[in-house]
């Protein structure tokens, strides 16, 4: 039935028919793959295993400076994003523990009310960090530009060893970039993934990990690493 050619069919159409039929099956096979991947990602610890295998492990040690990377900026009312606040608090905590004499806040500062780096610096002062010990860096669009700017800020001060503070998934890309910029990096990943995750959180973890793996590959292909 399916193979029967109508009188209208040319020899070319007839010869292409098996290939077209195989091609028509591709979406079904892809759909099956998506369902299988979804089940494995959501209901098994596969996302955790992948995140763990590419994770940069924490290495907390005394350094010359603490560098807290930007994260999503601030709202128009001046409120930091959750990630930005978490990273800033982690950096302040490291400073208050005496792990480095200098605290650097990178930030996305589109205007005065949304100046992430300055809002973070102000927050650090609220926690008792001396303004002389806080530096800010803004205007970088990418993590690579952040590394270059921080280098420009800290290199003249003789800073070579840094405690780098960012999210666990972002650290996969950030640590090699700052190492490539010439720093000795002690990684301080915040919000490391838990093993005890629900299905939705596992999918988020997988997405974040895959995004950073793709970004890392792009950086390597582009010659940034």
């Amino acid at each position, binding site marked *: 039935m399916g193979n029967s050619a109508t009188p209208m069919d040319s020899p070319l159409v007839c010869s292409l028919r098996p290939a077209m039929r195989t091609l028509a099956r591709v*979406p079904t096979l892809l759909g099956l793959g998506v369902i299988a991947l979804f089940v494995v990602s959501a209901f098994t610890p596969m996302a955790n295993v992948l995140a763990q295998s590419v994770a940069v492990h924490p290495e907390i040690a005394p350094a010359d400076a603490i560098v807290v990377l930007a994260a999503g900026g601030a709202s128009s009312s001046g409120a930091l994003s959750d990630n930005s606040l978490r990273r800033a608090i982690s950096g302040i905590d490291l400073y208050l523990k005496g792990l480095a004499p200098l605290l650097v806040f990178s930030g996305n500062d589109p205007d005065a009310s949304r100046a992430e780096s300055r809002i973070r610096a102000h927050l650090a002062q609220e926690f008792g960090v001396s303004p002389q010990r806080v530096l800010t860096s803004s205007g970088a669009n990418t993590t690579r530009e952040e590394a270059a700017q921080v280098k420009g800020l800290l290199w003249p001060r003789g800073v070579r060893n840094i405690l780098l503070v960012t999210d666990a998934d972002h650290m996969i890309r950030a640590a090699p970039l700052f190492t490539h910029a010439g720093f000795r990096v002690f990684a301080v990943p915040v919000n490391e993934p838990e093993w005890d995750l629900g299905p939705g959180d596992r999918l988020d973890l997988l997405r974040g990990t895959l995004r950073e793996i793709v970004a890392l590959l792009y950086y390597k292909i582009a010659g940034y690493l």
Partner: protein
Amino acid sequence: MNSATEMTLWIVGVVGATSLASYVVGSRSLGLSTTDLSAALKRMLDCIGTILIFTVLNLAIGAAAILGARFLIGRFVSLYFLNDDTWVVLSALQGLTWALWRQAGRSRRSISRRT
């Protein structure tokens, strides 16, 4: 039992129960055939696969456009724009429409061949 395992069991339990209930309602009350169910599952997989194709296509073109804007025009556009859930939702609408369109065409052809 930890909360994540408990959550997983709740989700699987509720979805499993509603799937079973809808199968019973469909086959017994509405008289739907089991053969049609396997055809429906195949069509569902076809729709999901098409959604994946549209998602990958949209993200690839989006990434190329962003990199093009960066390197050709010199305007910075963040690759994080590709991280928005809207891409998947809109790609799903595109993929569903395309797959259902194709399936409708196939059904029409098979009806006209039979008559």
